[in-house]
């Protein structure tokens, strides 16, 4: 088994627009929870990870600290999860059930660099 990180990226405005009514949001919520539960039950979740605030600071140096990422940024990372999968292909396959895809967001699947390589 290898480790992968899912980065959940979406544009804030598009994310909100895709949400629609409270009922649709609840349905989306239930899909998220079902998806995560299923991953967990199949033993693919190494660390559920965390949701992230959409704004913080972008630090480029002592004198170059700015607010960011900006709310209008195309893809803000909204959270991450540490996954276990056989290979990259399987990690990608498992990510296809993520409800963020229905709201115009993306899942970035990145292999964790193996030690000693």
């Amino acid at each position, binding site marked *: 088994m290898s480790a992968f990180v899912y980065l959940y990226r979406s544009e804030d405005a598009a*994310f*909100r627009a895709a*949400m*629609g*009514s*409270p*009922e*649709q*949001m*609840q349905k*989306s*919520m*239930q899909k*998220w*929870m079902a*998806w*995560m539960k299923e991953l967990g039950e199949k033993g693919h979740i190494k660390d*559920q*990870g*965390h*949701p992230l605030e959409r704004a913080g600071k972008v630090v480029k140096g002592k004198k170059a600290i700015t607010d960011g990422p900006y709310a209008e940024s195309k893809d803000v990372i*909204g*959270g991450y999860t540490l996954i276990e999968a056989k290979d990259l292909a399987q990690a990608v396959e498992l990510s296809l059930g993520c409800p963020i895809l229905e709201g115009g967001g993306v899942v970035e699947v990145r292999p964790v660099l193996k030690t000693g390589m």
Partner: protein
Amino acid sequence: MELHEHLFRREAGRMVATLTRIFGVENLALAEDVVQDAFCRALEVWPFRGVPENPSAWLMATARHRALDVLRREHTARRFAPELARSLEAEVTLGAAVEDDQLRMMFSCCHPRLPETAQVALMLHILCGFGVDEVAGAFVSTRAGVEKRIARAKKVLAGSERLFEIADAGDFTARLPAVHRALYLLFNEGYHGASAEAAVRAELCEEAIRLAALLFEHPLATPATYALGALMYLHAARLPGRLDAAGNLSALAEQDRSRWNPELIAAGQRLLERSASGPELSEYHVEAAIAAVHASAPRVEDTNWAQIVSLYDTLMTIRASPVVALNRAIAVAQHEGPERGLAEIGAIADRERLAGYPFYHAALGELELRRGKNDAAAKHFRAALALARNSMERHFLEQRMVACQGAVASRGAAP
């Protein structure tokens, strides 16, 4: 922890009602925004952390927090009295206060400057948390039309200076009939409405009952309030029987009455008894009484049709309409035979106003079929079919057309 079905929708209504009371009605849009934000936040956090112990409190706290942020960050802060932020911080949502907030919003939505259709759409949108698409779906209207209607209604509401003051007994009593009427229309949209989805319609009935129930224990509720509740419960009890095992519409006369909900019938009967105090006899009293006669007949042949005809006579004196007259004629036909029924239909004043109503033609078809005039019946059913509003009605009417070709005439009336 599992999410309660429709939790977000219900909470949306409660939260917007409470926050609008705090912000003032002119800031309805702000209340709606921060509620939306709270749901977005839940969507980002709950999948990782699980549903909180008390999701309602979590959502309200998040919306409140968000509102404080907005007030602090934006220059609008100056426009708000400083005590607003304090009252937001101190706001504790108690059950009774939340109910009052919903009542206040319900009465506000029934603003006299709004047409009844707009009042109902607004209630469904603000108090029941239905999105514009969902309201459009429920009323089988276009999204653009509903959006315009709701936007215009919100403008009237936001421009009304303050939310309706429910503590003023005089104002409360004066607006109560409009509130009854809007709830009645909401319920009817679910019960008789055009939406093809039984689930959508059942939800409308459920929402109307939930909102009406806010009134039942109110000290200023009137016998008409209880009668309205009775009619909702007694009709809702029949909902499971309106669809047969195959999910098709089933006429009242042919429904499997064992599928009617006995608890709802009992609740309706209790409210009907409670409504029988005082001299007031509203249309809701009469409609509930008609529903109660049906509910008390274990089989269709046990129905006391004479009593139903006489109740329709009363209803005609309170709120005459061609549809009421048509239902009366159908009851007469059950009681005295199809010829008498057809004569009664022929005598309806403003009969031409029924021409666009599919169940007018269907009723004519049933009565012709019952007196053996299958060709005439088929013609009426064909006219009804052309007016059918959804696939369920179409299927029902197609079955009736088939019955016209067969030898055995069945005795269905409008469902």
